[in-house]
Each structure stands twice: as C-alpha cells, then as structure tokens.
C-alpha cells in the first residue's frame, strides 16, 4: 500500500474511536484521553453517540492540543475503526496522510482501504481470544488491548496509564493486575510487530497546570450542592439526566448529617416534568432551594408552571441541557436552540432570566449563583447548558468557593420583622422601588404575613382582583423587577482585537472555546474582531453599546433561526441589519474552522470594492 506523506505532528492531532454502543469501549476511550492529560498535554474529548442503548454506532473523539484549543477541531488524523458497520464512512473521514487503526484478525480486501493513509492492523480478536475464555472479558479487554497498542504507536508512557488504573481500581488488586496485563499485551504486540512510534506522537509537556477535567452536568450538580439546593425533582431525559444523577451522588458523599446519618436533601424522580417543576415550585414557595434539570421537551411541558412561577413570583431553578430540536429532534446531538422558548416561556407576557455558562467551571459557579438569584428576584432562573458542555469532559480552571459566602435568601419577612411597629406587609408591595416585593414562608406568624399565592391577578396585598388597573400595576412592577435583574446577573465579557476594528462578534455558552480559537484563525486571515461573550439574559446595557460601537456585529449561535440575535433585536430595539447571524446547527459542536470560514468569507466580501453603476 502506497503511503503519501503521512501526517507528522506532536501533541496536536485528533484521534477518533468508532465503536459499537454497549461494547464497553467508553471507559477505555476516556482512559486514553486521561492518559494524555497525565503527560501534561491538554485534550478536548467529545462523545458522539446515537439515541440508542446497544448496537448502534458510537464515536469518541480526542483532540490532543498542546495549544489548549478546547473546541472541536473537525477532521480526523487517526481513526480507531472498531465498528464494521460504519467502516466505509469512518475510513472516508480520515484526513489525507492520516492513520487507520483496525482489528486485522480477519483480512480485509484492499478495496476497503485508501491509498493516501497509513493502515495499522492489530489482530485484536486473535490476541483476546487466545488469552481469555470468558466472552465478556474478551469484549472488555479487547478495548484495553487496543489502548496498549495505541500507547506504543503514539509513544506514550505506559506508566501514566497504569497509574490511572491503580487510582481507579484502588483496593481491587485483581482488577488492577488484569487491566495492567491487558495493556501490556497490546503494547508489546505493537512494539514487536509494528513500526512504533508513528508520525503522531504524544510528548510530555507542562501545559495542563492545575486545571481539572470535568463534565458540565456534574459541575452544575455540584454547584447546586454548594448553592444550597435541598430539593431536586426531575424526570429522565437526555442529555440532562446526569445532572440529577450527579446531584444524587454528590449529596450521598457530602450531605448526610454526621450524627444521624440522615439526608440533608430530598431527591424525587417525578412522574413527569409537570410534577417535577410542581415539586420545585412547592418547595421554593415553602422556603427550600429547589431545582430541576431537563431538556427542550421537558421545558415545553413545564411552561404552564413556569408562567405561575413568573406571575406568582416563586423562585425556582431549571437547568436546561439543550439538545437538537424541535420535537424529539436529535436527542443526543447538541444545539443552543431553546433560547426563545426559555426567555419567553409560558402564555401571556413573561420574561425569564437565563444564564449561559461557557464551561464546567462556570456551570458550577452559575448553578450556585442561580439559587441566590432565584430567591433574590423571586423568579425562575434558567441555567442554559447544552449537550456539548453537559455530557463531555472539558478542561477548565479548578472550582473555587469562598467559605465566607452566605446564601442570599432574598426579601423574606420573619415573624420579628412582621411585629415591627408600623410595618405593613403586602405580598406584592414594591417597598424598595426595585420591583421585588417581600414574601413570608408559610408558618411564620400566627396572625400576620399569611397570604394567598395564586396565578390569578391580585392586588398588592395578594387579594384576588380582576381590575384592569390593578393588573397593569402588577405587570409594570414585574418589568421593573426584570430591569433590576440586569445588574444582578453575570455581565458580558468583552475583549478587544489587537488593532482597532469596526467589527464585533457576540457569542455565548459552549461556543466559547471554538470562538477563542477562531479569533486566531481570523487574525491570520487579516481580520480583526472585538468580541463579547454574553453570559445572561436580561442583557446588560453594555450589549447595546457594544453593538452601537461597531458597524456591525456577528452573532454566533448553534441553532437555525439565530435565536439570541432575535432576542437582542427584540429586547434592545436594534436594527437587525447590524447583526449578522453565523449559524451552525447540524447537531455537532461548532468548530473554530467553521466560525473562521463563515466570518472570514463575509469579511472578505466587504473588502471587494463595489463596481460603480455604469452611467450611459
């Protein structure tokens, strides 16, 4: 087989594993990513999986990136093709000069390969079958054996992988030694039979620092623990289920009363999303910090209750891990497509606070902060993650907490306050002019401070009323409250280009790493862009000024309709022509290449001087 200039790269390449769902490959593939991290080289892995439990194709991609680019890159330098079903597609996706690693137990006709790639065959099935008799062992250890072979091919230090095994199988000597053995089997075979290392190599570096490697959903769940959430009600839906599952496991470790062993939390798997959000609202009404985690279809079901939360002013937190819609859409693919649905969820005039974390560290911080915001503002807070952050490991700065931090329980009147002479309690009185009224928890005082919570219109003293002026007064106050929120939510972050420029770019959430990388690519093409990362809705006033300061601004989003752009236009009264949509919505994570090409092409067109109209 002729090989054309094989790719040669140290610490900068993409390996993709093509597996069959349910074959136990996930942990071996993750171990591969972690082993590289232990070399001090950053990685950015991504799960690409079908909406199915067993049998269908699944991919795991590891971007090895000494430069620390954490967005998806696109393209594959080395394919570990373990799934016959997707063979043709997998082989086709390899970059010219790339590598194909496969199980060569059964010979393949040469028509199944490409001339411009290097093919590396390891008889994995033969090796496993001659070593193990148990079918499950054969399946699982096959994954470890290919891991061992890869270690040799990429020149990785096997000690670092062994170290990971010993951490994982602490106290389970048998498992430890059998895994170490399988790893060595693969490695030794490769060293004896193949030309190792290949052009792609991992070399020790010191580029990871103190960063941690974590999934967004787990980080958000931990944020809920630190933020003081005691009630979680949820209903399973991909990609959000692991939030509640992680909250459960964090609570089991961190939240039991040392004396009695009893739980300082309550987690209920609701019968559906209606019940889950109902439980959250009931708990928050009664003074506990409560949240649910869901995805688009769950949001749809919750909307009636979301309207109640808005109008009756009951705090609540929804973590929405977005996936590709509409309807069931592509349940295991990523998008940022529920912006409008969440911002204006429910009927009538509603507006809700949205937070857009960029990575697990921010997911942790914003999750904790969302409970303060919910209680301070007495409203629903949406933590907007997506599958790309939620279900993938990402390198991020270590999680931080200030032990002096107290929870902001918002405006709650206690029995003592109610007894203060001259104190007037009206549940919907705007005492401080910020639109936020005082509430009381049920059971506070024998004769003062009780009120009726309802979704129907009422006056400032919570008395049912259908009078137009009373209703309008209330609705106006809710607008005031939303304006107050503007200065309480995380502000947008701005970074200026190296040189003055007339152009800007706005982006948010999981797009962040791809955008960071795209800026470099654009600069290389001669384009300068100021950028702003929006972190919350309502939009801070600096968003409008940023747009005003530029001839026009690109808005990068992972949805078809430019939902954030619409929200900016709608809320800030901006001429839509000034905002150029850059949209990526095929369900894969947006890449730097995509952004740089889309913006770069648009910028290139601007440089073309228009022809003068011919005058006859």
């Amino acid at each position, binding site marked *: 087989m002729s090989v054309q200039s094989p790719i040669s790269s140290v610490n900068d390449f993409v390996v993709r594993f093509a597996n069959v769902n349910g074959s136990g490959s996930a942990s071996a593939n993750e171990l591969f990513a972690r082993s590289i*991290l232990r070399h001090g080289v950053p990685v950015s892995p991504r799960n690409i999986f079908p909406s199915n439990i067993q049998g269908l194709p699944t991919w795991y991609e590891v971007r090895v990136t000494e430069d620390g680019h954490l967005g998806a890159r696109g393209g594959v330098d080395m394919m570990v093709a373990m799934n016959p079903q997707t063979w043709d597609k997998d082989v086709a996706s390899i970059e010219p000069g790339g590598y194909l690693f496969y199980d060569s137990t059964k010979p393949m006709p040469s028509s199944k390969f490409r001339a411009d790639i290097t093919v590396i065959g390891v008889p994995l099935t033969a090796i496993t079958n001659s070593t193990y008799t148990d079918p499950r062992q054969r399946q699982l250890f096959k994954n470890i054996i290919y891991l061992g072979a890869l270690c040799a091919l990429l020149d990785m230090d096997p000690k670092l992988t062994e170290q990971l095994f010993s951490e994982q199988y602490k106290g389970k000597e048998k498992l430890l030694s059998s895994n170490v053995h399988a790893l060595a089997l693969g490695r030794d075979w490769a060293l004896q039979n193949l030309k190792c290392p290949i052009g792609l190599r991992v070399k020790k570096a010191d580029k*990871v620092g*103190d*960063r*941690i*490697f974590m999934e967004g959903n787990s980080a958000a769940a*931990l944020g809920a*623990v*630190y933020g*003081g959430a*005691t*009630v979680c009600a949820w209903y399973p839906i991909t990609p959000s289920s692991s939030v509640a599952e992680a909250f459960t496991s964090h609570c089991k470790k*961190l*939240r039991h*009363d040392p004396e009695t062993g*009893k*739980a*300082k*939390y*309550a987690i*209920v798997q609701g*019968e*559906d999303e*209606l*019940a*889950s959000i*109902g*439980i959250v*609202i*009931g*708990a928050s*009404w*009664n*003074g*506990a910090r*409560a949240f649910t985690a869901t995805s688009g279809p769950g949001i749809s079901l919750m909307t*009636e209750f979301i309207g*109640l939360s808005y109008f009756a002013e009951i705090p609540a937190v929804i973590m929405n891990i977005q996936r590709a819609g509409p309807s069931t859409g592509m349940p295991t693919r990523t998008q940022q497509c529920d912006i409008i649905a969440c911002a204006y969820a429910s009927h009538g005039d509603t507006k809700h606070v949205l937070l857009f974390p960029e990575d697990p560290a921010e997911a942790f911080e914003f999750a904790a902060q969302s409970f303060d915001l919910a209680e301070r503002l007495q409203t629903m807070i949406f933590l907007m993650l997506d599958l790309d952050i939620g279900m993938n490991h990402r390198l991020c700065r*270590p999680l931080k*907490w200030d*032990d002096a*931090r*107290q*929870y902001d329980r918002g405006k709650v009147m206690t029995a003592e306050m109610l007894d203060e002479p001259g104190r007037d309690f009206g549940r919907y009185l705007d005492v401080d002019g910020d639109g936020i009224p005082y509430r009381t*928890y*049920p*059971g506070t005082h*024998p*004769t003062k401070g*009780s009120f*009726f*919570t*309802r*979704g129907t219109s009422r*006056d400032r003293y919570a*008395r*049912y*009323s*259908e*009078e137009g002026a009373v209703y309008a007064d209330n609705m106006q106050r809710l607008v005031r409250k939303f304006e107050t929120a503007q200065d309480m939510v995380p502000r947008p972050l701005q970074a200026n280009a190296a040189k003055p420029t007339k152009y800007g770019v706005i982006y948010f959430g999981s797009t962040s790493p791809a955008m960071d990388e795209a800026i470099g690519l654009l600069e290389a093409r001669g384009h300068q862009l100021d950028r702003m990362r929006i972190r919350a809705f309502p939009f801070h006033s600096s968003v409008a000024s940023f747009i005003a300061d530029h001839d026009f601004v690109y808005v990068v989003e992972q949805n078809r309709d430019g939902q954030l752009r619409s929200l900016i236009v709608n809320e800030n009264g901006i001429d839509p022509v000034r905002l150029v949509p850059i949209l990526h919505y095929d369900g894969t994570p947006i890449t730097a290449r995509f952004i740089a090409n889309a913006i770069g092409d648009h910028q290139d067109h601007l440089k073309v001087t228009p022809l003068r109209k011919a005058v006859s």
Partner: protein
Amino acid sequence: MTYIAKPKFQHPGLPKNDLGYTHRDYEGKVSTLCAGCGHDSITASIIEACYELSIEPHRVAKISGIGCSSKTPDYFLGNSHGFNSVHGRMPSVLTGANLANRDLIYLGVSGDGDSASIGFGQFAHSIRRGVNMTYIVENNGVYGLTKGQFSATADRGSKSKKGVMNTDNAIDLVAIALQLGATFVARSFSGDKTQLVPLIAAAIRHKGASFIDVISPCIAFNNHAGSTKSFDYVREHNDAVNRLDVITGRDPITVDYAPGSVQVVEQHDGTRLALRKIDADYDPNDRLAAMTFLQKHAAKGQVVTGLLYVDPDSEDMHAHLDTIERPLNTLDAGDLCPGTSALEKINASLR
C-alpha cells in the same frame, strides 16, 4: 372586586378551644361560591375539625388546584398560607412544600375534574409516595367552574343537567387510593357533617397519605334528577360503615366500649380513632376487604361512606427518603455547603 373580607369583630362569649381560639379564628374570607354549594359545607367541616383539634391555623398550608372546589382554601384558615396552583397539579406543589418543611400540616383541596382528569397522574403519584397530607376531593361529578361538563367521576348512565347521558365509566378515586397504598382512605358526604368532621380530624392526625373523597353536590349543574351526585341521590343511597370519634392524646379516653359496636385504632402520634360501627363486620384495617366491600356496594348502587381503611403503622415520604428531622427550609450555608476543603479534594480527583 370579588374579594370580601369578613368583619374582624368577635363576640367575647364565643367558645374557645384548648389554644384559646374561637371558630372565627379558623374562618377565611366570605365564600363566593353558589349558595348551597356542597363545597361550602366541606369548608365548614374543615373549620370545625381544625377548631376541635386545636390546630394553630398558621401551621397549616392549604394547597389547591383550579376549580370551584380549589377556591375554597380562601374561605377557611385565614391566617394560613394558601396556594391556588394550576389545574390538576396541586399534588406536586404540595409534595414539594412538604419536602421543604415537614413540620407543617398539609391540606390539599381538589375537585373531581382537578384530580380525576387533568391531575389524575399527580393524584396517584402523591398517594403512592406517601406524602404526609390530607387530600380532600370535593366530588360533584361535574366541572363546576367551567359550567357543567361531565367529570371523570360521573357515573355511567347518570344524566347531565341538559339531559345528556354519560356513557363513560366512572373513576372511583377511593378504590384507586386504596390500590395505590394510601394509608388512610375515607368517603363522606358534604351534607353529613357529623360524619365528615371527625374524618377530617382523623386524617389530619394521620401520618402519611390520607385521602377523603367527599361527595359534594353542585347546586348549579349537578343536583337534578338523573344525577348520582345530587343531595337527594346521596341521601337515599348512602350506606355508612362507621362513625368516628377522634381522641387525641390530651383527652381522657372515655370511649364507649360496648362490645361489637366500637373498634379503637391507635395511630403513631397517640391519636385514637374510635370507630362506632354500623356495619358490624366491617374491618377498616384490611385493605383488600375494603376494596371488595366497596365494589360490592357500588354494584348495588350504594355509596359507602365512613373510614374505609386505615393503617395505624403508616410511614410518610420523609421516612422513605430518610431525611433529617429538621425542616429542609431551615438549613443554611453552614449546614449545606461542603466548603473549600471538600472542593479541593474534588478538584484533586479530577486531574
């Protein structure tokens, strides 16, 4: 404005309960329901039961859905927090409230439309979770607030006010509550205060999911000939299995122990339920027998009322979840936040 507050004046000679409260302390706003609506009688019974139990009104949280019945929490316990949630979703809101603070008394008030149609799932699941609550359905077999449509508890063959025959089978919420594991199940009639008041009192004292289905005729849309939820129909077809006395721990126990006529059930909290039996062989501790008994009588067109089932060893949702005794809503950062040292360990485990 449709809101009518009651005058605050209280006659000094009004009788007081153990806490020194009068009936007036358990009242709410003036009802805006149709005069004669069965729901108002249930309101009166709730007031009476809370008065008799000497409950501190503000320690009750009253939660409802949407419907005429769901409006009633505004008409009792004016010093309690109330919550008119959304149609059919009272049970989840109550469940959440209960999770936040296990120390309050939870009264869930709902209608048959609310609980047997749109909220059927939530009804079922709150019961099976064993939420410590008194769940009252004010059952008139019809949608009152939206003016007279059949509800899912309307009996097959019964007629609407316009003379239309109901051809769908009825959902019997009592039978379902029994099947789902409610630990206190009763049925009563809004027009029978003597039976209803002690049932509500007992349900409040019961730890776990208490369910009371109260037939409550709708004067406006379901009190005509051909209805099986009218005052006349229920009076004619009512078969009470027992009458109840609730004896709280504070009172001396002076029950009439006449053999064969009284059965005493002691609950967790020391409350004794003295069942003065009318149906001599009715055993309220046998779930299976209760289900059969109910079906047999329903087949004969009889509405069985009374305490149909009680489990004196009941547990509630907090026991299942093993939550701490302190209400979760009283915990603050010091109790809940694991702090930086734990976070450092977590960070270290993620490298």
